[in-house]
């Protein structure tokens, strides 16, 4: 039986449920030499901010067991350049751009959302309220249900109902479900689970932090069980809310694990750094995995793990 990977995510029609993960694909152009960006479910851009931003000092990357730490600090050209160059390229190329925005204040998020929402060709908005690489932990809005819902409600107010709004959350909280519930109440159409976990490595020679920014975001296969757990918990609490699972996915089988836990789509991130064709490969492998088990499409398995045994 041929597998149909097409899927619907909060009203967004996608040819397959696989996307790039924000920060792992820039704005899509570089990866287009490795696969057709228009074929992938969606291209999630690196989080864009209002102003150009240099990012943090180097070193910005440290290897860890089955993963890595990054401390980029949201380097980017700012929204003017993004809307003038990057977004039109993605749209002309036929890709479905999911634009990730990040701000230091609620006002910055609102301004970004308004400008992105009025730009042609945007498929969805991803609100990054969980980047760990900022100087002030208090600015990681997703660490607190009240701050998180405040940003999402303000963004929702300027984003038309027809444009799906996803909020990306951090696992570095005591009670993820309460944060998830608060941003859904505030108007998020779906949730992206998860951002990186805050980590730190010490240089064994100098006995000082390895990263220029001291702390960094942990990603890669090391965090996959954490991400699957987060998807599981939130799906269990709010089975009607579309979830996008992200964290350490390298293969179609990994993606299938997220779908079974309750994700309707997945994002492929860190593996892109050693296999730039990975996002499209994961989509093909996911089709194979579904076919092997006799499923017609991804919807057949979303959340299926919850109905198996006593969970």
């Amino acid at each position, binding site marked *: 039986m041929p597998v149909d990977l097409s899927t619907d995510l909060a009203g967004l029609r996608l040819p397959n449920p696989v996307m790039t993960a924000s920060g792992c694909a820039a704005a899509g152009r570089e990866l287009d030499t490795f696969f057709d960006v228009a074929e992938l479910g969606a291209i999630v851009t690196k989080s864009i901010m209002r102003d150009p931003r*240099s990012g943090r000092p180097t*070193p910005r990357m440290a290897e860890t067991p089955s993963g*890595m730490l990054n401390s980029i600090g949201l380097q980017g050209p700012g929204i003017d350049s993004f809307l003038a160059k990057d977004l039109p390229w993605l749209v002309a190329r036929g890709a479905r751009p999911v634009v990730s925005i990040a701000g230091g204040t609620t006002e910055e998020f609102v301004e970004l959302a308004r400008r992105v929402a009025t730009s042609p060709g945007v498929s969805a908005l991803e609100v990054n309220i969980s980047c760990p690489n900022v*100087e002030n932990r208090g600015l990681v809005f997703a660490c607190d249900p009240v701050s998180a819902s405040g940003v999402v409600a303000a963004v929702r107010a300027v984003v038309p109902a027809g444009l799906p709004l996803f909020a990306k959350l951090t696992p570095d909280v005591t009670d993820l479900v309460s944060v998830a519930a608060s941003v859904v109440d505030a108007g998020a159409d779906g949730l992206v689970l998860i951002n990186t976990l805050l980590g730190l490595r010490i240089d064994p020679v100098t006995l000082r932090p390895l990263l220029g920014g001291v702390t960094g975001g942990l990603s890669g296969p090391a965090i996959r069980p954490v991400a699957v757990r987060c998807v599981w918990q939130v799906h269990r609490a709010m089975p009607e809310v579309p979830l996008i699972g992200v964290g350490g996915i390298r293969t179609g089988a990994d993606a299938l694990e997220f779908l079974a836990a309750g994700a309707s789509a997945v994002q492929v991130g860190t593996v892109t750094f050693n296999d730039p064709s990975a996002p499209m490969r994961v989509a093909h492998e996911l089709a194979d995995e579904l076919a092997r088990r006799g499923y017609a499409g991804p919807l057949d398995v979303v959340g299926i793990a919850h109905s198996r045994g006593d969970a």
Partner: protein
Amino acid sequence: VTAVAAQHGAHSQCAVEEAMACGVGVCMTCVLPVDGDDGITRMVRSCVEGPVFRGERVHWDAVGTIPGGTLGAPPTGGH
């Protein structure tokens, strides 16, 4: 190398080696401060915008930092 070349009135081109995660231009790990044609200093990817730069364009002393005046540099305290 840049200094020696400059002493003798010659241009220099230097291939740089920065720690990279992806090597294809998407991760923004391998950046260093380089002046553009417009004279503006930016954190530039050595993998796809280098690895060979005009020696006098690279802020060699500032590698590992964000020199003041870099496009988008933080006002204080870092990002």
